[in-house]
C-alpha cells in the first residue's frame, strides 16, 4: 500500500515545489502552460492504461479529446434565446441554463457547463462503445489503421461542419464554475488555483488508475496483454476488459478536452488532428508503454517544452524523431522499471557499454 502511494505523495510534492519555485522566481506565467500540460497529461495516463496495460494501440485519441472539447464548447456558446420552446423553458426552469452577456454585451442564454460536460462525457462513452466494440476485435495494422481512421473522421467532421466553426473552431467559451470561487478559466488571476485544480485532477486520475492496475481488472489486463488466448481460456472476459479500458481512456481524453477548452476559452480543429494522436502515443512510448509514472513524467516534460514553444517549427518533427529513436533503440521505453539495474549490469560488465543498456 505504502509503496503504491509514496510516488503519488512525491509527485504532489513536486507539483507544489514547482508552484513555489515559480512564485519565488517571479515566473508565474509558466503556470499557464503547466496547467495545459496537466490536462494533456490526463489523456496520456488514460492512453497509457490502454496501450501499456490492455495492449491495444489507439491512434485516434485526439478524436475523443475533440469530441469532449467541441461538445462543451458548442453547448456553452450556443445561444438558445432565439429558440424558445417547451424543452428550452423546461431546461431553464430546472436551472440547466445560464444567462450571460457575451463580449459585445449581447445577452446569451446557454447550457450550463456542468450539463455540457455531462453531455460531452455521455456522448464520448456512447461513441467509444460503438467504435470500440468492432475496432478492438482487430489486431496489429488493422487496429492501428482503424483507430487512425476514426481520428481522421472526427477531424474532417469538425473541419467541415459550419456550426462547429469549421477551420476557425469555437471561441469565447466561458469559464467552468466548479464551486463558488473556483472557476476553470484562463484569467491570470485564477492561475494558481487552476494550476492546482488541474494537477489535482491528474493525481486523482493516477490514484484511480494505479488502483485499477493492482486490482483484479488490472491483473486480468496483464494476462490479456501477455497471452490473450491463454487469458481467455482462464475464463477472463478479454473482449469486455479491453472494451472497458478503451472507454475509460476515451473518457479521460474527453474530460481533458472539456476542461482544457474551458481553460483556453476555445478549441480548434487542430486539436483533433492526427499529429496530436501520434504525439500522445509517442509520449506513452517514451514513458515505457506499461509505466504510468513514466508516461506522466514524460508528458510533464515534453508537453511543457512543446507548449512553451521550445521546439519552434520543428514541433511535430521532434515527436517524429523521438518516436523513431525510441522504437528503434529502446522499444520498452526510456523509463522502464529495470532501467537502473540494467545500467548497473552494463557498467559492471563493461564500463564502455554504459550508453547502451
Amino acid at each position, binding site marked *: 500500500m505504502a509503496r503504491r502511494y509514496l510516488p503519488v505523495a512525491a509527485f504532489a510534492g513536486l507539483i507544489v515545489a514547482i508552484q513555489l519555485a515559480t512564485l519565488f522566481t517571479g515566473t508565474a506565467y509558466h503556470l499557464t502552460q503547466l496547467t495545459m500540460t496537466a490536462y494533456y497529461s490526463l489523456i496520456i495516463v488514460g492512453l497509457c492504461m490502454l496501450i501499456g496495460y490492455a495492449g491495444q494501440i489507439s491512434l485516434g485519441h485526439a478524436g475523443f479529446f475533440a469530441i469532449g472539447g467541441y461538445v462543451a464548447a458548442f453547448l456553452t456558446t450556443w445561444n438558445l434565446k432565439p429558440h424558445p420552446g417547451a424543452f428550452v423553458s423546461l431546461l431553464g426552469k430546472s436551472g440547466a441554463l445560464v444567462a450571460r452577456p457575451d463580449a459585445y454585451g449581447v445577452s446569451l442564454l446557454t447550457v450550463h457547463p456542468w450539463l455540457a460536460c455531462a453531455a460531452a462525457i455521455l456522448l464520448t462513452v456512447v461513441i467509444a462503445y460503438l467504435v470500440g466494440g468492432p475496432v478492438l476485435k482487430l489486431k*496489429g495494422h488493422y487496429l492501428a489503421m482503424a483507430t487512425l481512421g476514426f481520428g*481522421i473522421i472526427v477531424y*474532417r467532421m469538425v473541419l467541415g461542419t459550419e456550426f462547429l466553426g469549421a477551420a476557425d473552431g469555437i471561441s469565447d467559451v466561458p469559464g467552468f464554475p466548479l464551486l463558488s470561487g473556483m472557476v476553470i478559466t484562463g484569467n491570470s488571476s485564477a492561475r494558481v488555483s487552476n494550476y492546482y485544480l488541474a494537477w489535482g485532477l491528474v493525481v486523482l486520475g493516477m490514484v484511480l488508475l494505479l488502483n485499477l492496475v493492482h486490482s483484479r481488472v488490472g491483473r486480468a489486463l496483464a494476462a490479456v496483454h501477455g497471452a490473450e488466448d491463454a487469458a481467455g481460456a482462464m475464463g477472463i472476459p478479454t473482449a469486455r476488459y479491453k472494451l472497458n479500458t478503451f472507454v475509460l481512456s476515451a473518457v479521460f481524453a474527453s474530460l481533458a478536452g472539456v476542461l482544457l477548452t474551458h481553460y483556453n476559452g476555445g478549441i480548434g480543429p487542430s486539436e483533433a488532428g492526427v499529429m496530436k494522436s501520434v504525439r500522445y502515443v509517442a509520449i506513452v512510448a517514451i514513458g515505457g508503454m506499461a509505466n504510468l509514472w513514466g508516461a506522466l513524467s514524460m508528458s510533464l516534460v515534453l508537453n511543457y517544452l512543446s507548449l512553451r514553444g521550445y521546439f519552434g517549427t520543428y514541433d511535430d*518533427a521532434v515527436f517524429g524523431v523521438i518516436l523513431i529513436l525510441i522504437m*528503434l533503440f529502446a*522499444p520498452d521505453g526510456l523509463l522502464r522499471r529495470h532501467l537502473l539495474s540494467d545500467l548497473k549490469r552494463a557498467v559492471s560488465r563493461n564500463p564502455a557499454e554504459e550508453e547502451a543498456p
Partner: protein
Amino acid sequence: MAGITYGTIYAIVAIGFNIIYNATGIINFAQGEFVMLGGMTAVTLNQFLPLPLAILAAVVITTIVGAVIEIVFIRWLHKPSVLRMVIITIGISILIRETALHIWGESVKALPYFTGSSGSSINLGGVYISSQILWVVGIGALVVAALGAFFNLTMLGRQMRACSANRDAARLCGIDAGNMVTLSFMVSAAIGALGGCIICPITYVQYDSGTPLAIKGFTVAILGGLGNSTAAVGAGMILGILESFSIWVLPTAYKEAISIAILLAILFLKPAGIFGSPEAARLKEF
C-alpha cells in the same frame, strides 16, 4: 471520369502497400509520403529540366529515399513486433512530411499538364475529357502491366515473390532476402513517386498531401485483399467512383470521411477484402 482518375492513383498507392507487405509483412504507413515526395521533387526539378527528365529524376530520387529508409530503419531490426513497425513507419512519415515542409514550405504546387492545358479537352467518342486523365489512366495501366511482367517474368521479380511466399526457403535457395526487402521498398517508392508525378497536374501537391492518399490507398489495399495487387486495381476504381458520386449527396468536406467509413466497414465486416478469401487471410500474420 474523375472517379477513374482518382481510382488509378489509389490503386497505385495500394500496390505500393502490397509490394512491401508481401516482402516484409508490414504496412508501410509512409507510403503516401512517397507520392508527395515524387510530385514535389518533379515540380522543383521541372524548373530547369524538361518535364520527362524531371519526372524520371524525381522517381530516381524517391527510389533512393525508399532504399535509404529501408537500410537505415528497417533492415537491422530482428523480427520486430507489428506494433513497433507501425510506430516506426508512422515516425518516418512524420519525418518526411516535416522535412518537406521545411524544404518547400506550405505552398501548393503543380506540374503543367503533360500535353495540352487544363482548359483543353479531347473528344473521345462524343465525351470530352481532359488529356491528363488519359495520361493518368494510361501510365497507371502501364505500371500495373510492367509490375506484372516484372514479378512473373524476370529473375529478380521471381526471387522477390519467393521471399514473400517463404522467406526461409528462399534463403536456402540462395536468395538474399534482406536485399529483396530493400528492393521492395525501392519498387514501391518508385511507383508511388511516378503516381505522384502523373496526378499532380490535376490534384496539386502540398507537403501534407501524402497522409490522405496513404489512408485511401490502404482502404483500397484492404478492399482488394491485402497483398493482392490485381484486385487492388478493381478496388481502386470502386473507391474512386464511389467517392466522386458521394460529392453529389454530401458536402465535399466529408469526402475523405466517406472513404474512411468504407475502410472501417470493411475492416469490421470482411477484413479479407471483397475479392479475398477468408481462408487465405487467416494464414497471413497481422
